[in-house]
């Protein structure tokens, strides 16, 4: 049996059988993992959240039957909501936990630490532009989704996504120019 491609599954219905679900995981795990890692900035957190998302996706498959032709966008929307929740929760936590998380970044093998430092730098840059624009840029550049896919994730028009993207890049250009020529 030929395994379905990403484009086939992106607009497919929600997987119902175990075989369908296995194919679903196989196709989306890498993208979802990347998506989560760039937002949570922690490999372990990304893995945990991805597992919980997939488990939820399987356990609530009967409820999610209504998701037609939007399995991929729906999955990413779930992941995005979880990331937003975690960020909000983190903001409410006392500052000591933030210190802990920064310490965590510095601990570990050097390659991973450098990678995390790079992600942190990108995260800081994107924080300087509006969140919606930043999210579109993340999905477009880091997660390599097309504008139509991003539009489905956000549930808006493709033109809106394109506009946000353009504005975001222009603002980033200005910010980087300012940093280089203060």
């Amino acid at each position, binding site marked *: 049996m030929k395994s379905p491609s990403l484009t086939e599954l992106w607009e497919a219905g929600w997987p119902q059988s175990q075989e369908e679900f296995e194919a679903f995981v196989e196709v989306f795990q890498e993208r979802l*993992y990347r998506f989560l890692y760039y937002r949570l900035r922690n*490999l372990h957190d990304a893995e945990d959240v991805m597992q919980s998302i997939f488990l939820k996706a399987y356990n609530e498959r009967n409820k999610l039957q209504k998701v037609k032709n939007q399995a991929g966008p729906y999955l990413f929307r779930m992941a995005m909501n979880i990331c937003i929740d975690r960020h909000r929760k983190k903001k409410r936590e006392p500052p000591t936990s933030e210190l802990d998380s920064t310490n965590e970044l510095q601990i570990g093998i050097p390659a991973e630490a450098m*990678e995390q430092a790079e992600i942190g730098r*990108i995260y800081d*840059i994107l924080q300087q532009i509006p969140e919606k624009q930043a999210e579109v840029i993340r999905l477009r*550049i880091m997660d390599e989704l097309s504008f139509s896919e991003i539009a489905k994730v956000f549930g808006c028009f493709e033109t809106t996504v*394109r506009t946000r993207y353009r504005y975001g890049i*222009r603002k980033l250009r200005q910010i980087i120019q300012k940093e280089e020529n203060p």
Partner: protein
Amino acid sequence: MKCHRIQNLILDRLPLPPEVEFSPDVQCHLADCPKCQQFYCECVKVVQSIRPSTSPIVPPGFKDNLIHRIRANELGIRYERSSAADKSRLWKPAYVISLALLILIGLAWFEPHAWFSCLWNRETPLPADLRLAQAFAGEFPSIPRTGVLYQSRDILFRPLNDYYREVHQWYPISIIDENGKIQCMKLSFIGDRKEKQIVKDESWYDFDRGSFIRILSINGNPFYINAFEDNKIVLTNLQDSSENRINIISIESYILPQPEEFLNLASSLSALWTDCNEVKIVHSKTTERYHGKPIQQIKSTLHKKNDYTNLYYYFNFRPDTNQIFEINTYLHKTPLLSIYPTQKSEARPYPRDLQQIPLLPDNKKYFRFDKLDAVPYIRTIDLNTLRETAWQGILYAKLDPCLYPIARIVDMFDFSVPSKRMVAIVYDNPDHCPLILLQSISLNRRYGLKIEKIGRPIHTSKSEKTIWESHFLDAAANHIYQIIPSFIKPQTNDVRGYLLKESQDTYAFLIAGKTTDKTQIILFLDRLTAFPQTTNDSNS
């Protein structure tokens, strides 16, 4: 094409790899427009700066683990469902059997079989002193005593020598007569006063009969019964002076008894309060009007120190007739008992509430004085207070006819055994040489008052200064010296405690210890100041 449109197209294409070429129109514009070329370069730079150089790889085996977990969960759910179904199948016979049992019990409820009533009438809460209650039930088998709240006290007629021959030895007791009047009686003993006689004053609440009974007996022979039956007070005087050698006469001069007599009376009536370690008698009189007639209310409060429970007795009098018409008992604000001695229709106790009283809380088996909470001290307390503290004991001697203080008490804690309460009692009996004893009094629910001789006088000087030593005094001294700043010196050892009677009313607790330079330090506990005196022999 305008630059703005070209720039938008550049932006749209940006993350794509460089090998993907622009459309010919855009390529032409870019070749001619340096501004758009610069924009393109800058945007590429922006994208490169926000594009991570590496991409994370999904941990190996993630998918397998996930699938395995999903399968395990599914199996678990199925297993739980099947086990639940099996359990329900197993319980079905139990449901049937329990239903049948319920029907049987329901039928038996309406059948007045003796076996069922025995089954149903479970044992009431155990009396405070089961041992005494059983002994008492054995002595008087004619009176059924199933389910009692029992209390007893001993009235001691002490042996008198020639010095007292002319003195009439008697005790006041209070009773409520059938007309609701409080009678203050003189209880005296007739006969050979050289032998010790104990009159037992016992009272209990009988749950089966719903009545209070109070019996005074000597040597197992009851001579007085005061019962609350059929909604009224019933008195039965079984006195046989020839047999019991007890004489009860009314004291006409008493108008109202003293507050402590109210307390005794109340405790005899309710038979609930057997383990007070602190009794506070509030003798408050209130003049109010009841149905248009002036009444007088006397309130007695029994305050229990450890668990902060209070038992209140309200005696309502009519001062014109000196007649008690209502006695109310409250545990905090919960009514326990109301007695209307003269109104038959309204007189009834509250047996339902009465059975709910936590008489024997499991966690309060003994009175405990915590070491840290108890400030070390010696205090002289009134004998009357101690009598109320332990009214079942021999300290009842306060009611000796001589009416002078026969004993002084120094109350202190035993730091080696915190559950015990140590009391040094000094008997100044004029019949004998001054008898001085160190005794421990331990109060607990099971045995009531227990008195042990724990020390001995070691020295009596001509100036009537006496010093006692005891192991518990040493224990107290070892505990106390550590918290006295002036005494904290390095290498202080061999700390001992002594009790010193300086004069008639003055006591001192001495702590003596030797330091490494052989300096003996003596502390006077009351003032907590060190005496600079250095002695070689502490006993002298």
